[in-house]
């Protein structure tokens, strides 16, 4: 239970108790109603996007009224997209810097001249009965406009396209909207895959990278850094090539079989990054990892990602990060634990620390 929910319950209970103490049984009824309303209000304020999404399911019942019907459609789209955008930003800050807001056009206030002058693109959305289609289309539109907006022009076209597809599928999967996901695959992904086999190859690569938690936390995070580095150039052929090569390096890394050596480092002109997996072989010995961190410093790698799976490796990874920081080799920017899919397709606890070069 979140702290905000606990505070809401405590406040509601205090209102109930005080009312009962002051007025008796009538007070208890009165306090119960008021307390529930206060809790509900706190919940809505703290979980605005979830409340908006949930409200669309209630509003649906009264959708014979046009205003309610519009709110049913827009609340579901806004709530879903804003909720999961915030969640993806918690994996790598700034991936989706904008939320979404739907403004309905009032036909009675529109005329041809004002429409031409305002220059707005109007999207036609269907009734809530077709909410899967609306959600899939709106999410696709939103992601193409909002995913790493300042950096996308420096990313290889196919990789950016595959990244957009992967993020939309991730949002719809997190929301468990199989109907919208199916519709998205049929309407947008399949025609593209049929035209270009390479896009399919990279959609599959990014799916595998994402399954290990590297897609948003490493790949897109590295892409995100391109905007500030390369602005104001309109495009950059070197960065386009390097984004594709980085995707290839991460694909090889996440598909690597036990005992096979795969380089965890990518050294380009613009993107220079290394991944340090902490495996069981060196349990309780941080020295090989510190040596690796030193070699990254020597090779002028600015970003180092320390990754580990399962408790024993995670605890060693934390020790490695501490040691690397104390030696002033790298500085920790962030660290997080999350679940990834293990070899048996079961959830496994994973850890990642983002380290950057000091100075």
């Amino acid at each position: 239970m979140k702290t905000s929910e606990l505070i809401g319950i405590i406040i509601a209970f205090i209102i109930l108790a005080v009312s009962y103490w002051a007025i008796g049984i009538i007070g208890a009824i009165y306090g119960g109603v008021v307390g529930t309303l206060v809790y509900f209000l706190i919940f809505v304020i703290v979980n605005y996007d979830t409340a908006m999404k949930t409200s669309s399911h209630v509003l649906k019942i009264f959708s014979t009224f046009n205003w309610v019907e519009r709110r049913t459609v827009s609340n579901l789209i806004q709530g879903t997209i804003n909720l999961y955008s915030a969640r993806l930003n918690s994996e790598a800050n700034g991936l989706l810097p904008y939320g979404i807001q739907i403004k309905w056009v009032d036909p009675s206030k529109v005329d041809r001249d004002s429409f031409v002058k305002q220059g707005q693109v109007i999207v036609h959305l269907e009734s809530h009965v077709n909410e899967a289609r609306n959600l899939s289309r709106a999410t696709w539109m939103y992601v193409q406009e909002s995913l790493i907006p300042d950096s996308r022009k420096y990313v290889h076209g196919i990789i950016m396209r595959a990244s957009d597809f992967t993020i939309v599928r991730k949002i719809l999967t997190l929301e468990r909207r199989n109907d919208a996901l199916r519709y998205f695959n049929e309407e947008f992904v399949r025609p593209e895959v049929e035209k270009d086999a390479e896009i399919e190859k990279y959609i599959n690569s990014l799916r595998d990278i994402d399954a290990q938690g590297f897609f948003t936390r490493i790949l897109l995070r590295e892409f995100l850094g391109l905007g500030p580095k390369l602005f104001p150039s309109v495009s950059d052929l070197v960065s386009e090539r390097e984004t594709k090569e980085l995707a290839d390096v991460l694909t090889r890394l996440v598909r690597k079989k036990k005992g096979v050596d795969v380089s965890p480092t990518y050294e380009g002109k613009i993107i220079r990054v290394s991944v340090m997996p902490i495996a069981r072989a060196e349990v309780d010995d941080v020295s090989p990892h510190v040596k690796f961190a030193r070699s990254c410093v020597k090779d002028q790698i600015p970003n180092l990602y320390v990754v580990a799976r399962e408790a024993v490796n995670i605890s060693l990874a934390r020790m490695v990060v501490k040691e690397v920081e104390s030696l002033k080799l790298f500085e920790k920017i962030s660290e997080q634990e999350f679940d990834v899919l293990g070899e048996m397709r079961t959830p496994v606890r994973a850890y990642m620390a983002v380290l950057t070069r000091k100075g």
Partner: protein
Amino acid sequence: MTTLKEKRIIHAVHERDLDDFLKSLGLLDSLVKKDLKCSICGTVVSRENLRFVYPVGDSIALCCDKPDCYDKIVAARTKKSE
């Protein structure tokens, strides 16, 4: 988890308001007569496949729901917002 403060606005027309909206723009009769075409691929536009309505210069253009056409409009919208 924080709520995203800055929002990208999507202007939308609901299918229940579509006829009135097109009427306000003087396009409803042409739509009914199947005289309107997608400004990108040339497909005849109907209520079912109409996805976007947008101004181009002094005139108004429509776009159908084909993914390629859809993408071109989204790309133009993105360019405009940059």
